[in-house]
């Protein structure tokens, strides 16, 4: 039985932006369809079209049927009776998706009142039940609280409660966890799973994260430039994707287990790779006129690709379809079947995927030859502290507490290596980076860059040292001045530091080439560049003065997966060629595994564990590290569904009032299993970082580190 069926859906925004160009899918009760695609692929337009919430200037064609009733073309009044009752939606950004002026309980109750005609009191009582169901503690009291009194994760729970309030038939979830931390994402996905089981609704889960889909969806649809380029059962899709774009996505995805994805039957590229043409982002309006829209980036493009847009064709069991002319190139040679014959092959031969433990780790592109302690230290940080004072009142400001943003952090970064600072948002990782960047006397502790103590620097010395310490910011869309040309952006640091004018032009060209941009880009303004290109400009600007240390604040967080891969490759290459050292701040553990040599895990302003990336990831010693790693979904349905994990409970405590004793204690899964005597240590003493004997330069701040970490995994 199908509850939600979409056929031939097309969405065109005025004047001629074709956001969705023919999408078909059908969902049974309780089934989950994962819709995956990069930004601009038409995912959100699809969701809004299904809900009938597109802006008035958008044109929709095709068919959306809910329980065999056509939804397209209905009036707003008609659709309103279905929206929120049978068909509901969970939006991406929980911070802005709730009305700020009404209590959350009332907002949920409103949904019930509109459709069920319940009394206000009954609806409110039901709202409390729903809040309880989605795991909001003290639901009756919290129902009277306003959205701004909830954290992001809690607000998303409220959104889910709202979506399931009237036992919907289908739920559309548009990037429901994108704005959240990994640990909170895991919690919210769990709530979504509970919601699905409670209502039996079909779910359309829209995301850019292949990991989220792997664990949650039954079927996956990959979108590119407004088209569904490949659709199939989740295991089939991850094991043997057939559309070159899907394969490229899988390959460019950094993985937390360090494995490199290979499809069943070996590398279909035969050494090739998805072309990281970032400028050719799928502008849906232009695509389609000249054949397959993926053709410019496709490594297996053939002549036939130019002859119009390929239609989806069945390429595997259980309705696995791909819209590709050259599926022969991506067929599994071990099958011994021509792709056309695969259609008849209905036997469900699902071989076990390769054991990730046997997969060879990719060779470090720059093998760090010398031993770590032989290389010179570029950045030395010891007991760094940054506290913010909190004030209350608008006229009579008075001290209301202290936020311990960074509270005694120490590490070193040596030549040619990358140290990653990871942790949930609010753990102090960016503050630590900014504190180093100030090159001034810290509130407490010591920062030494290239052997110079920043506390002793005078302003001339500080300016000289700035040449050696540069920064790349997170958001390439806001960190470049929109009124300056790329050439001027790159020349600015040179001019500031007194490089002679006749050298600047040449240096700008050099820099552009260094980061893989063309000389023609020099004359452009930032808005004429794609996100990846802008971030390359950001990197080039940072490199202009030939620094020795680069501070990177989430440099790839705002970029799409395939673009991310390109920027990370660039960073690795630069480190190897120029011998840079990186301090890399990120919340994305998979990215860290791919790029960093050492990792420092931060929690509430402290480093709880630091060590070599492989050692820390393979055998985390601190329960928090373990929990963080557990929270990251693996982009592999087989492994993801079989993982034993202890998800982290609760949220980050108020950094103005950290818990006494060990700061992680209230959320610690290990603390719960300790005996009274063992636990008392955690209650009373804040653990100091202790070296771990079995590993080089590895420290953990835990009274009871995981003795045989990973043994029970």
């Amino acid at each position, binding site marked *: 039985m199908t509850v939600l069926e979409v056929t031939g859906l097309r969405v065109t925004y005025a004047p001629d932006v074709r956001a969705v160009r023919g999408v078909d899918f059908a969902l049974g009760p309780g089934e989950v369809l994962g819709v995956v695609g990069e930004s601009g692929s038409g995912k959100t337009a699809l969701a809004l079209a299904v*809900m009938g*919430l597109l802006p008035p200037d958008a044109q929709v064609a095709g068919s959306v049927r809910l329980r065999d009733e056509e939804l397209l073309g209905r009036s*707003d*009044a008609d659709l*309103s*009776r*279905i*929206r*929120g*009752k049978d068909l*509901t*939606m969970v*939006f991406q*950004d929980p911070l*802005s*998706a*709730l*009305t*700020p*002026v*009404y*209590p959350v309980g009332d907002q949920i109750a*409103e*949904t019930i009142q*509109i*459709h069920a005609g319940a009394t206000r009191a009954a609806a409110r009582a039901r709202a409390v039940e729903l809040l309880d169901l989605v795991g909001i503690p003290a639901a009756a009291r919290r129902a009277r609280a*306003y959205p*701004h*009194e909830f954290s992001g994760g809690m607000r998303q729970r409220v*959104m889910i409660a*709202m979506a399931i309030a009237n036992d919907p038939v289908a739920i559309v979830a548009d990037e429901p966890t994108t704005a959240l931390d990994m640990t909170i994402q895991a919690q919210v996905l769990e709530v979504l799973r509970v919601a699905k089981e409670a209502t039996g609704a079909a779910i359309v889960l829209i995301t850019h994260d292949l990991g989220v889909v792997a664990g949650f969806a039954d079927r996956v649809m990959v979108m590119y430039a407004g088209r569904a380029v490949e659709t199939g059962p989740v295991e089939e899709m991850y094991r043997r994707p057939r559309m070159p774009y899907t394969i490229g996505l899988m390959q460019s995805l950094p993985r937390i287990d360090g494995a490199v994805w290979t499809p069943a039957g070996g590398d279909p590229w035969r050494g090739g790779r998805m072309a990281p043409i970032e400028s050719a982002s799928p502008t849906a309006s232009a695509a389609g006129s000249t054949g397959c829209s993926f053709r410019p980036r496709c490594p297996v493009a053939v002549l036939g690709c130019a002859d119009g847009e390929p239609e989806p064709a069945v390429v595997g069991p259980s309705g696995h379809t791909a819209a590709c002319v050259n599926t022969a190139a991506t067929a599994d040679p071990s099958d011994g079947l021509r792709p056309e014959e695969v259609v008849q092959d209905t036997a469900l031969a699902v071989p076990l995927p390769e054991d990730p433990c046997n997969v060879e780790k990719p060779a470090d592109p720059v093998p760090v030859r010398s031993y770590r302690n032989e290389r010179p230290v570029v950045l030395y940080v010891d007991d760094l502290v940054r506290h913010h004072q*909190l*004030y*209350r*009142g*608008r*006229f*009579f400001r008075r001290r*209301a507490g202290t936020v311990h943003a960074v509270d005694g952090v120490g590490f070193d970064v040596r030549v040619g290596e990358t140290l990653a600072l990871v942790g949930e948002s609010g753990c102090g990782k960016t503050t630590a980076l900014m504190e180093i960047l100030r090159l001034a006397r810290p509130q407490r502790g010591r920062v030494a860059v290239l052997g110079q103590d920043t506390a002793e620097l005078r302003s001339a010395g500080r300016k000289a040292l700035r040449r050696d310490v540069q920064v790349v910011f997170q958001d390439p869309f806001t960190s470049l001045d929109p009124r300056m040309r790329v050439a001027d952006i790159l020349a600015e640091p040179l001019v500031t530091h007194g490089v002679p004018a006749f050298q600047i032009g040449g240096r700008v060209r050099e820099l552009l080439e260094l980061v893989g941009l063309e000389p023609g880009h020099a004359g452009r303004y930032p808005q004429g560049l794609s996100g990846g290109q802008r971030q390359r400009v950001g990197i080039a600007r940072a490199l202009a003065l030939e620094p020795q240390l680069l501070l990177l604040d989430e440099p790839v967080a705002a970029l799409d997966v395939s673009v991310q891969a390109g920027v990370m490759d660039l960073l690795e290459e630069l480190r190897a060629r120029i011998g840079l050292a990186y301090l890399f701040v990120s919340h994305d553990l998979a990215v860290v595994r791919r790029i960093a040599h050492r990792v420092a895990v931060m929690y509430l302003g402290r480093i709880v564990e630091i060590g070599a990336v492989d050692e820390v990831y393979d055998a985390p010693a601190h329960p928090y590290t373990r929990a963080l790693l557990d929270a990251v979904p693996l982009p592999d349905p087989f492994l993801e569904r079989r993982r034993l994990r202890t998800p982290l409970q609760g949220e980050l405590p108020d950094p*103005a009032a950290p818990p006494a004793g060990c700061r992680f204690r209230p959320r610690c899964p290990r603390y719960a299993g300790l005996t009274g005597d063992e636990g008392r240590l955690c209650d009373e003493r804040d653990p100091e970082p202790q070296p771990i004997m079995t590993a080089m330069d590895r420290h953990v701040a835990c009274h009871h580190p995981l003795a045989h970490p990973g043994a029970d995994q």
Partner: protein
Amino acid sequence: MAAFLLRRLVNYTALVVLAASLAYLLAAAALKPRANFEDRAPRPPEAVVEAQLTRLNLNDRTPLADRYRTWAGGVLHGDFGRTWQGEPVTAELWRRLGVSLRLLLAGAVLGSAFGILLGAYAAIARGRAADRLITVGSSLLLAVPVFVLAVLLQIVAGKANDATGLRVFEWVGESTPGASDGPFGPLGGLGDRFRHLLLPTVTIALAQFALYSRYQRSMMLDVLQADFVRTARAKGLRRRAALLRHGLRTALIPMTTYFAYTFGLLLLGGVFTEKAFGRHGVGEWLVDSISRGDVNVVAAVNCLAACGVLLAGLVSDVLYGVLDPRVRTGAAV
């Protein structure tokens, strides 16, 4: 909230004292009441002039500080001194305040209500004929000074009266003498007052409408695309209901801040309206007193204006707290 308001009240009291004092000092230093005597023919004897000026606390030969002390001492007891004619300022101030409020209140309330509604409507119908009409209309009204508008309306009303042969519109003064003595008794008097109020109310309402509709339109445009309005529609609210219940409700919050500013403009605009419609209100009094050099009246009216603006500020603070739960909980971080 109560503590917050109390703190605000203390702040505002300090501001009122400051504003009133400055107004008095400025008026006392700049205005020359003595000139009134010097222009008189025959000129009164010097001693009489001195005595008269000193009696009214207007003598510029008394040191400013002393005059200020006398004035402030009186104000503390609720006495703003005497006018040039020797009448008590306080009583006249209250009487004139009543006249002004009767004139301004209806127009202000109507103008802001219509301004908010039509501004919101213009935002929803953005780009359509209704939006253009409201936009052009309010821009036009903003460009026309109040006194021109008042005169234009009077001309139109006069033509209407002539055309119908009835005196539908009356605009000079508050009432026609003897209106209450007609067949309808006091009811007729009330009707007459209402008739006199019609034109001034329309004038003020139009001016207020122009301001509020522009503000509200831009506020509303901001929330039109807001995620929470989309959420409200996804819940099953129709577009109009979602925009009213979730959109307009949120877009009203910043309007409370404008309220205080617009109130100040309203008081200023009141001068022209009163002049144009022959009402003997506070604004008219202020203008006349400045030309007479009547320091005490000028200072008193300024003090009243300061109180009014700050009271409006206090009201807008309260409204803000009522409308926006985010400030209500205090300074939570």
